[in-house]
């Protein structure tokens, strides 16, 4: 007894449990169990990577990828996209004046309009994006600068926003709602689209402003404190973000379902973009029930209420019209990538084939020991 306990102590480690010699008194062979696992003889597959064995994989990958790539490329090419830069950086631009004079402090909106022509009609639903370049919405401190509890309608967070919102947490002694830098820098240009008939009349194109945000954002993540009714009361004792012209409960007075924190433009903005050049869904142009294209080819005018200054960081503002396919917006990259990778695989497969034929003879084992 004593002996075994001493030994156990000396061996003392993880394994002594396994070695199982602590059981004093029981005369038991120490012979290890003969199980496949313990003897490390589990049935196994041992792939050997040689030109010969790997070869088929390369061809198969090549053969699969190239068609996929072609398919993707074609799909992407079928997507129609039109883009207008309305930053007004250039002196010839329509919005040059607005861009030049505008800053966050301006009170009067500046209007400008950009005419453009669509060469091809846009079928099905058309998505209208605004795009910003050089805007680092992914800046670390920027991304953090929000209070999700507040946006989720939490009253205490409304009154006492998270510290992360600093320095956009309070203004004039009152908590800012919504707090933080993201909200503060909300994109506030207004874009309107007019189709110019062949006879010159401007027809406003109906822009649907609902359904542009994620459903979960709109219904779960963002909530107004105390429901959607009577937002004024709910947001009393809060202050609007510094850069905002109007308080949060006034974002879309026309529709209480799209006001306050659950304003979809706001929600879309709050989803911080991954890259400094990004676009955000602005409006949707619904496909008409008739067979006419959603946006027939022809002349259009984009009316801009120029509120958002980007010159300070050399930013760019764009309006993008795009149809989408099952794989999202226009992006030929993926197709090209598939084709490229597939081709490389195919090429490498050929190389391996050559190698295999030239050198891979020793797999026939006969000459291994020679």
């Amino acid at each position, binding site marked *: 007894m004593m002996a075994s306990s001493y030994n156990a102590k000396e061996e003392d480690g993880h394994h002594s449990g396994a070695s199982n010699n602590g059981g004093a008194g029981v005369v038991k062979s120490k012979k290890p169990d003969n199980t496949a696992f313990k003897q490390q003889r589990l049935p196994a597959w041992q792939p050997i990577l040689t*030109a010969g064995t790997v070869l088929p994989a390369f061809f198969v990958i090549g053969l699969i990828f190239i068609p996929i790539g072609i398919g993707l490329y074609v799909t992407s090419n079928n997507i129609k996209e039109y883009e207008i830069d309305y930053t007004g950086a250039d002196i010839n631009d329509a919005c040059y004046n607005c861009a030049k004079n505008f800053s966050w402090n301006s009170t009067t909106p500046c209007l400008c309009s950009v005419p453009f022509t669509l060469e091809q009609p846009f079928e099905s639903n058309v998505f209208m994006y605004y795009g910003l370049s050089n805007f680092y919405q992914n800046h670390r401190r920027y991304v953090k600068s929000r209070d999700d509890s507040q946006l989720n309608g939490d009253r205490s967070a409304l009154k006492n926003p998270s510290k992360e919102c600093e320095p956009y947490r309070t203004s004039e002694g009152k908590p800012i709602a919504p707090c933080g830098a993201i909200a503060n820098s909300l994109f506030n240009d207004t874009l309107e689209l007019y189709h110019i008939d062949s006879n010159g009349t401007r027809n406003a194109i109906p822009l649907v402003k609902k359904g542009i945000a994620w459903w979960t954002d709109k219904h779960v993540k963002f909530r107004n404190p105390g429901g959607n009714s009577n937002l004024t009361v709910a947001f009393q004792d809060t202050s609007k973000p510094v850069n905002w012209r109007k308080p949060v409960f006034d974002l879309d007075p026309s529709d209480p379902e799209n006001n306050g924190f659950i304003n979809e433009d706001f929600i879309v903005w709050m989803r911080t973009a991954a890259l400094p050049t990004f676009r955000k869904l602005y409006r949707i142009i619904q496909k008409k029930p008739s067979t006419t294209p959603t946006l027939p080819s022809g002349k259009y005018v984009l009316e801009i209420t120029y509120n958002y200054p980007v010159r300070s960081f050399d930013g760019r503002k764009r309006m993008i019209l795009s149809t989408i396919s099952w794989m999202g917006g226009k992006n030929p990259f993926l197709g090209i990538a598939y084709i490229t990778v597939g081709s490389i695989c195919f090429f490498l497969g050929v190389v391996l084939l050559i190698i295999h034929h030239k050198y891979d003879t020793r797999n026939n084992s006969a000459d291994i020991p020679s």
Partner: protein
Amino acid sequence: MRITERRQRGRSKKKPKETRTVRVHTGHEHNPNRHYANNRIKTTKYTVLSFLPKNLFEQFHRFANVYFVFIALLNFVPVVNAFQPELALAPVVFILSVTAIKDLWEDYRRHRSDTEINHMDCLVYSRAERRYVERFWKEVQVGDFIRLRCNEILPADVLLLSSSDPDRLCHLETATLDGETNLKQRQVVRSFFDLDCEFDPLKFNGIIECEKPNNDLNRFRGYILHRSGSRDALYKDNLLLRGCTVRNTEEAVGIVIYAGHETKAMLNNNGPRYKRSKLERQMNVHVFWCVVILLLMCLFAAIGHGLWVFQYGDKRPVFDVLSPEGAELSPVVAAVYLFLTLIIVFQVLIPISLFVSIEIVKVCQVFFIHQDQDLYDEDSDSRLQCRALNITEDLGQTQYVFSDKTGTLTENKMVFRRCTVAGVEYSHDANARRLALYQEVDSEEEEVPPPGGSLRRDSSSSQQSSRVVLRSLSTKTHRRTGSRADAKRASILSKHTAFSSPMEKDVTPDPQLLDKVNECGGQMDFMRFHGQPVSQLPSDLADIMDFFMALTVCNTVVVSSPNQPRQKVRMRLESKSPVKTIEDFIKRFTPSRLTSGSSSSSSSSLATSRSSNRGCSGLLSSPSAESTLAKLQEEQAALGSAPPRYDGTPRSPEDGELRYEAESPDEAALVYAARAYKCSLVGRLPDQVTVELPHLGKLSFELLHTLGFDSTRKRMSVVVRHPLTDQITVYTKGADSVIMDLIKPPDTGRRQKKLVLRTQNYLNLYAADGLRTLCIAKKVLSKEQYACWLQRHLEAETAIQGREELLFDSALRLETNLQLLGATGIEDRLQDGVPETIASLRQAGLQIWVLTGDKQETAVNVAYACKLLDPEEEILTLNADSHVSVYPPSSSSPHSAAFTVHRLGLVIDGRTLAYALDQSLEDRFLAVARSCRSVLCCRSTPLQKSTVVKLVRNKLKVMTLAIGDGANDVSMIQVADVGVGISGQEGMQAVMASDFALPRFRYLQKLLLVHGHWSYSRLANMILFFFYKNAMFVALVFWYQFYCGFSGSAMIDQWYLIFFNLMFSAFPQLVTGTLDKDVSAETLQQLPQLYMSGQNSEEYKPYMFWMNMIDAFYQSLVCFFIPYFAYADSDVDVFTWGTPITTLALLTILVHLGIETRTWTWMNCLSISFSVSLFFTVSLCYNASCPSCFSPSNPYWSMQRLLQDPLFYLLCVLTPVAALLPRYFYRACQGTLFPSPVQVGRQLDKLPSETRRNILNLGGVEAGSAVRPVPHFLSLGTPSPEGPDENHQRAGLHAVDATEKDTLPYTKDAAKLPPEPRPRPPGDAEPRPPGDDEPRPPGDDEPRPPGDDEPRPPGDDEPRPPGDDEPRPPGDDEPRPPGDDEPRPPGDDEPRPPGDDEPRPPGDDEPRPPGDDEPWPPGDDEPRPPGDDEPRPPGDDEPRPPGDDEPRPPGDDEPRPPGDDEPRPPGDDERPHETSEALKTSAMSASSRAASSPRPPSQAASVQLPLPPDGDAQRVRYCRNSDHAVRPAARTQTDAVL
């Protein structure tokens, strides 16, 4: 454990006193010993309260933990924080808590066992109750009296005061302490010795003064101070140690001296060892590089951020948020802050889970090694133990193996083989035959169902069995039943009987000798009968008698009866204690008694012995029966039907089964041998040895002293009073080298002189046969001499200071002027499979050195037997006598390089080793040793062993493994990188010190070749993968910095970032790291060459780290930019974009792991799918769990949305493919174009087993013969191994390896990548014609062509004139430091056996034609014309590389500077023209030989040459290998071969 020790140390520091005083504690008053530790033991590290701080403190010793905590804490600083601070703590806390839980569990187990032990019962004397009462162990205190009963375990270190044993002895089993299974005797303190009545604690009034607690089990000193003022010395023999078991003693009483943690057992109790493995060291370098990369990345991004901030100038963009304080950050400040932030973000680069994972994997590996059935030894029911948990992979990288010989390579089961008595050799042929039978039966190893019936195994049954074998009549089962299975059973039965395998027990006596013994016994009986003094016995018979007496008496063997192995056989004839005091001596040896009482006393004692026939058969004691028996046996022998047995007739079972428990196997073997001559030891008491003799019956020798064996003296002696002659006789038994020096000077008589000479001859012969030799000598002391010696001895015994030294000196004084009786040859059989193991280890590129304490000839022969030395090898023997002589002082010479090329074996003896290990010479020694294929160090002390290991390890920067079984190997085992202990016969010390304990040597093969290889390759791959994985993952975030203004933002959700390592990607690599097998175990064992991949660290080279890093960066680029472009200019948000990237990274990493996985089992598949599903499950749950938490990422519903996005799937297909394409392609190309040997091995695995076997067999044949030409540059250029270019050195090592390896047609270093610039042209790999890679023409492996030896005049050795060393210049002596001889025992020179001088005086080499004995390499000879030797000028004879010498003109050596070739071959130095350098090189003798494995016996005839008797001691001694003397014989044999 360490803590405990520290505490101990701390405590002992507090007390300034050097000794401890123990007073009696009987329970009444204040315990006077209360300041000593009590007997409660606590081996736990922690208490409930101290656990957390203490454990954390310990964990923070690991730098990585501190680093991660620091980073986590950094998160709490708002300016720089990157993640939610609490979250950032999670991984660190997780890691810390996993370790903490592990520690806690271990500690709990310890606690439980502590409690169990603390609550054991023992009897403690209570003064209040005046009796012994039951107490818990923990209540025992120092000073308590304890009563011990039989089979009780000692609760503390107890001083033995009383024993129920009539001899006042207490028997102990110390297996728990040292693993030795024999009984130890402990004696009652002397002053209590004569206590007749029961010991009464109340009467004890002494004060015990003894040394402080220490961990030396074999030392205890102190004294009892009685009230009377008398002192009584205490020895280790009085101390019973905690943990031992009391045996054979009904009751004993003692006083507690050390309790609890201060007991020797506890102080010896060290925890498992922690070593850093080579791989981990290598890894740490790369961890450091990771830190550098991390800092560079941070710095780069910080500068980028500074610039980014700077470019905006005063116009602050809306997205550049002010710091929380609202302050604007200047670019520089922002950059500094960002730097810190990024350290947090990129922390993943330093793999936090790496250390934990490595530990887990290692534990699993240890588990599997443990579980391997092939490492289980059925005979001893023991399996491999891994005692060190964290160096499994070092097993796969070992380059040098240092092995002990005895007990490691051999069984350490000593078998008496032959002996020589009084100069007559008794060859014991029958004995040899018997052993051959054992071997034969051994060899057909099959499992046998244990036959029913009697389990009793006695010698008659074995005899029967062997007879049956001889006649080849038996059925198989019968035969096996007879010996092997029987032996096995017997060994199991007698498990606790040390050293008594059946082989040892059965000795077949030599008929001739038996006759003489009988004759002698008869004569003595006759003489006694007629009242003649026994001394009139013819001297040869007397010698025989004395010889067997010595064998029987001169030992420490304990006799026990087999029925109760622990029951001491008692045959007390007269009660007398050993001489302990002068008075005692005077009393006992008063002249009156000596003169008058001698005959009567002896006869009376004989009478008693005869009358007391207990335990011995009447048959044997009757001379007539004896002689008939002898006749019977002779007849039997003559018939040849069976080897005669000493017990041809049935004996009474009792007697036949006396068991001998010896401390060393030699002793047991000798005692059994003596028993075979019916000179059997029947009882041993501390003061008396009882011997049963054929005609005389029982004789009891009064044992006056036992001077135990020690490794310095290399001998043991007993002083007895001979019952027949009544003389005081010293019997000494010891190593021949020492005994021969102690023999009385030869002038005493021609007979003795001749005897010594003859014996020496036989000894050499034995040694040549690989037998262990022992010399037996005796000495008769006159009373006066004895008295004189005794006085000083007693002084020494009672001394407290320096007692050991005094006793040692005393022993030296006694053991002089001995009279040689004879010598014995004991065989130590090789363990099963040793030659095969050595061969395959060597094929695996391991350098095997054998370090043994045995004498040179024995060692060399065992080395041949176990294939360590090869007959084809040149043997370089270094025997030197002085410092200077070992190497010439001239510095490095280019020619030393030439040594590399040959297959050389180096034999060096202990004395030379001592010089060679000197600082100034060690480099040279190493240079020579390294160029040799095998090295054999004989006569080395434990310290030398460890020094050699240390030297090789430190200087050559190689991985060393030391394997040994005995206490003398402990230091070596501890010094080596990997220490392996053989849990064999010699106790557990080696095992305790080792990292791995094996039951047998042959298991080393699988342990190294398979488990070592696997462990290494698994771990190396896992570590590389870890680095890759983390780098790849972090690089993703790094690339992102370019797109977020270097703001430290991460698109990967913080949860993924933090838990990626820990949860999502950890499991599969753990599985792969644990289970992956690059090559199957079978192939690894059949192709040992594959082991070299581990030796050369081929799985984990520095460039691989960098390649992995580059690959990681490439893959992360792919994983980053494919999604980048796919989502460019879209409305994707940070984390919806980051999640696919994470997914892609995970998939890529897993597929990468898949590519690197060599063996797929369901576990791998399961773990990978588990990982993927875990990731999706977790992220789905996480993304659905809380819409407003997890700021700032807030990934609510992202994953769900992604799963609806076809783009996501498209990416998931494309990205991993694109990312892994290069690696996959590279692997495929590499597998085809330049596969590593390991890959070839894997291909072999694939083949059907039969084909594979054929191929491997073929390969095996090749492996033996194929020798590659070794490029010159690879050979040892610089003799100083610490030369600046390590690579070069490695290359040199390879070169040595290369001669052995590669039956595979592929270079092992098949250059994967540029840093290893050895890409073979692909065509090279084409099958070569067979034999292509041998540089030598076939047939050149044969020992050597006759031409080599021919020129030598036959009988070359004889004509040498004696004393022909005179021509040497007198200056020869100068280099020898004066006083060099001192260490040699006095009289060393004079008494040299003169016979040795005659055949071969020192310096005998001159007359021989120069150059005939150079160590020519075997392959060297072909090109030379036969008879080439004569014309060669002197000095030509360094070994040159093969093929090197054709172009050389014979005289091309002249320009060489003299003295350039360090390991001079002998014969070199005497040449007249070289006198000047001869000064330096003179004693260096390196002799070569054409070794033919069965060496003729005569060749050992001229081993160590003695010094001439004059003052020539200064002269260098020529200790040369014997081969010159035997050359002719060897040659004839070679000729026959040719």
